[in-house]
């Protein structure tokens, strides 16, 4: 997944221990012979981070190339997150039936194919083929992610599972930053200037469109090449793990759904996660548009503000990990969600650099939300935890549905006003935190959400 590498239900319940194998003084991270496969797997985490956050840049880029509305260009995220949502269950089926290695290879293969579909898409000079390419790419990445997390867990002793997973997932935000960097350096500065198009002949316009689409093509072909390479190497070196420990969630036992539905912390938690992911994708998808359309930052420089958002997100993540040890998680969640609402409102009313800084600052408030909502929602679910986690993962649908809504508002009421959408989303998250703070319940241990 793009923003939040979602650990599947199986991994979520892993104990956070890094025990040493009996009889040795040294922690073993992976089984003997699994060092190279593990490194390759780590590359996968970085690769999907890159691909995912490059789509944030694409929302603005496609609007520019095809001279389309914000709503239309936001369909990029609909295709991407829609694929993630749609493929989550099939991916789990593949893993259960054929094993994680097959899952990883299937995901890599499909994602590579998606990257390659960019090639004919760029020749057709049409938007829909690009959406198709993105859908296929994201479908592959969805399978890859669903398989890679438990694959990483299965590559070594159970005692070091969390450490292994944390290490692997640490490369996801690195990849995410590389993805935005690719867009900021290779695509945005080289796009045909918008005023230049006003005086072009029909043929010149087609040529400029072809030139600009080739800019998009480059990074995706690069990603496809890297994914293909990893596919080959994993096929050759990646062994099936000695024991792909059965971590089936099991069939939905009678009553699980009912129990989860009757649990307001869980029910509202899924909704809060939906709005959190929605807010995150909205803010990152339209940061570049805010910079160019509201503040007047030149397109060639606008990508750096998105880059700053991601770096802030990354740094704040570490800081929040520390603060979560001091404060009650939902208190921090409430404060940061309220901060996010405040920053979104500033973005709506300060139509200048202050507003843009506020937009970048929203990433600070987003930084702790996914893991905190994840943990709080699953707290005390007991044997329903694994099944419940699946529902939280499916909340990624917010990333597919909210950007088109924000795009529509942008088209009707302006770019700055449209930040009412993430403001409402974050407001819901704040309400969820408040609900938890004001409710007495059994204080079970928080469920860790992998690397976050």
């Amino acid at each position, binding site marked *: 997944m793009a923003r939040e590498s979602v650990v599947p239900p199986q991994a979520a319940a892993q104990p956070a221990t890094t025990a040493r194998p009996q009889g040795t003084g040294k922690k073993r991270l992976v089984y003997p012979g699994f060092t*190279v496969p593990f490194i*390759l797997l780590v590359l996968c985490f970085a690769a999907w981070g890159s691909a995912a956050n490059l789509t944030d840049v694409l929302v603005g880029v496609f609007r520019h190339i095809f001279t389309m509305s914000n709503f239309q260009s936001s369909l990029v995220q609909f295709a991407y997150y829609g694929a993630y949502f749609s493929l989550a269950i099939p991916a789990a089926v593949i893993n259960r039936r054929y094993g994680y290695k097959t899952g990883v290879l299937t995901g890599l293969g499909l994602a590579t194919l998606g990257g390659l579909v960019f090639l004919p898409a760029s020749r057709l000079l049409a938007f829909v083929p690009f959406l198709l390419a993105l859908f296929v790419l994201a479908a592959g990445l969805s399978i890859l992610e669903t398989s890679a997390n438990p694959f990483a867990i299965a590559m070594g002793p159970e005692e070091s599972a969390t450490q292994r997973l944390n290490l692997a997932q640490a490369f996801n935000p690195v990849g995410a930053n590389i993805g935005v960097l690719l867009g900021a350096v290779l695509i945005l500065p080289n796009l045909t*200037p*918008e*005023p*230049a198009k*006003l*005086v072009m002949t029909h043929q010149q316009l087609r040529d400029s469109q072809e030139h600009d689409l080739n800019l998009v093509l*480059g990074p995706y072909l*690069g990603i496809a*090449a*890297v994914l293909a*390479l990893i596919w080959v*190497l994993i096929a*050759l*070196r990646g062994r099936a793990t000695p024991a792909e420990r059965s971590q089936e969630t099991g069939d939905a036992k009678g009553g699980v759904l009912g129990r989860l539905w009757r649990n307001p912390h869980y029910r509202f938690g899924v909704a809060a996660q939906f709005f959190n992911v929605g807010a995150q994708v909205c803010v990152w998808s339209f940061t570049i*548009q805010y910079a*160019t*359309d*509201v*503040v*007047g930052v030149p*397109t060639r420089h606008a990508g750096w503000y998105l880059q700053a958002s991601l770096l802030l997100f990354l740094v704040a993540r570490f800081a929040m990990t520390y603060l979560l040890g001091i404060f009650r998680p939902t208190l921090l969640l409430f404060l940061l969600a309220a901060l996010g609402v405040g920053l979104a409102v500033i973005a709506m009313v300060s*139509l200048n650099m202050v507003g843009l800084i506020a937009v970048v600052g929203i990433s600070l408030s987003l930084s702790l939300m996914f893991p905190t909502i994840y943990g709080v929602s699953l707290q005390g679910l007991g044997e329903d935890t694994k099944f419940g986690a699946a529902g939280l993962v499916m909340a990624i649908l917010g990333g597919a549905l909210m950007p088109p809504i924000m795009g529509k508002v942008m088209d009707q009421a*302006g*770019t700055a006003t449209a930040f009412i959408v993430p403001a409402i989303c974050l407001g819901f998250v704040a309400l969820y935190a408040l609900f938890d703070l004001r409710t007495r319940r059994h204080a079970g241990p928080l469920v860790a959400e992998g690397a976050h």
Partner: protein
Amino acid sequence: MPQTLRRRLGRLSPRLVAVSLAGVVALGLGSCGKQQDQVTVGLIVKRNTNPFWVTMKDTAEQTADDDNVKLLTAAGTSDIDNRSQVAALQKMTAQGAKGIMITPANSRAIVPAIEKARRAGVTVVALDTPTQPLTAVDALYATNNLEAGELIGRYAKAKVQQLGIEPRVAMLDLAPRITSGVLRHNGFLRGFGITDRSPQIVGSAYTLGETARGEDAMRRLLAQNPGINVVYTVNEPAAFGAAQALKAAGRDDKDVVLVSVDGGCDAIKNGVRPGVIDATAQQYPENMARLGVQALADAERGGPKPRGYKNTGVELITADPAKGVPSKDVGFGVRNCWG
């Protein structure tokens, strides 16, 4: 796959990764185009402080960087400083520029210096402002001011119909016989569907395109005719002046249709976006500079010489579109404004 081969390939993995990644990078670098021969081109603007000319110069420099062009630049000390422009033409010709772009500060007085440069083999393109006569230069790259005026005239007419009001038009012009001002004025009349003698025009005044004079002129016109509900302004500084006078007279933004020409960033953000200026026709100095540098560089490299007039584009920008009049939103205006 045989086990031995599998093992060998496996051992090669790190090396294979490195080689393949290097290949990807090399492919990327290889796709960079071949560098063209460097040529020298000059740009002479009216002055270095006006955002319009600054945008033009910045774009020329960026285009020159991209196209391996050595760009010589010069500017006058004011919008009417012909002497500095003549000196710059001579200096650039001596420095080996085979193509020069100029924004004439004095359309007639600059002509002898241009003719001298052309006799020395220099191709001269006028940007933004035409020379008199037009044929004194090889080409003119400029906004179609008649079209700019027509766009805001059509918009004002559509708004008047939408509001259902009887138009009482005030014309805040530039100055007598200044081509760009005359063309904008005539374009507005054409777009609105009236002439200078039409009864809808209740007053007019020259503003020199300045805020203070615009405000003063508007105040006087309102004193003569408080019912003015359509205001044409030749540029945005004059429009801001008119808006101040209208506000001082207690007139609501919504009751008056105020239109202008230029598309500067300040006007788009603080005039059009909040609705103080209802619509403006945005021009693109960056197109003048980009097209000028590219055309002159092409010509120096053996391509065709630039000839005739090239329209550098104009778009109607408004936060409140009028039915039947094509326009772009404020976001577009902010993205592409100058200054």
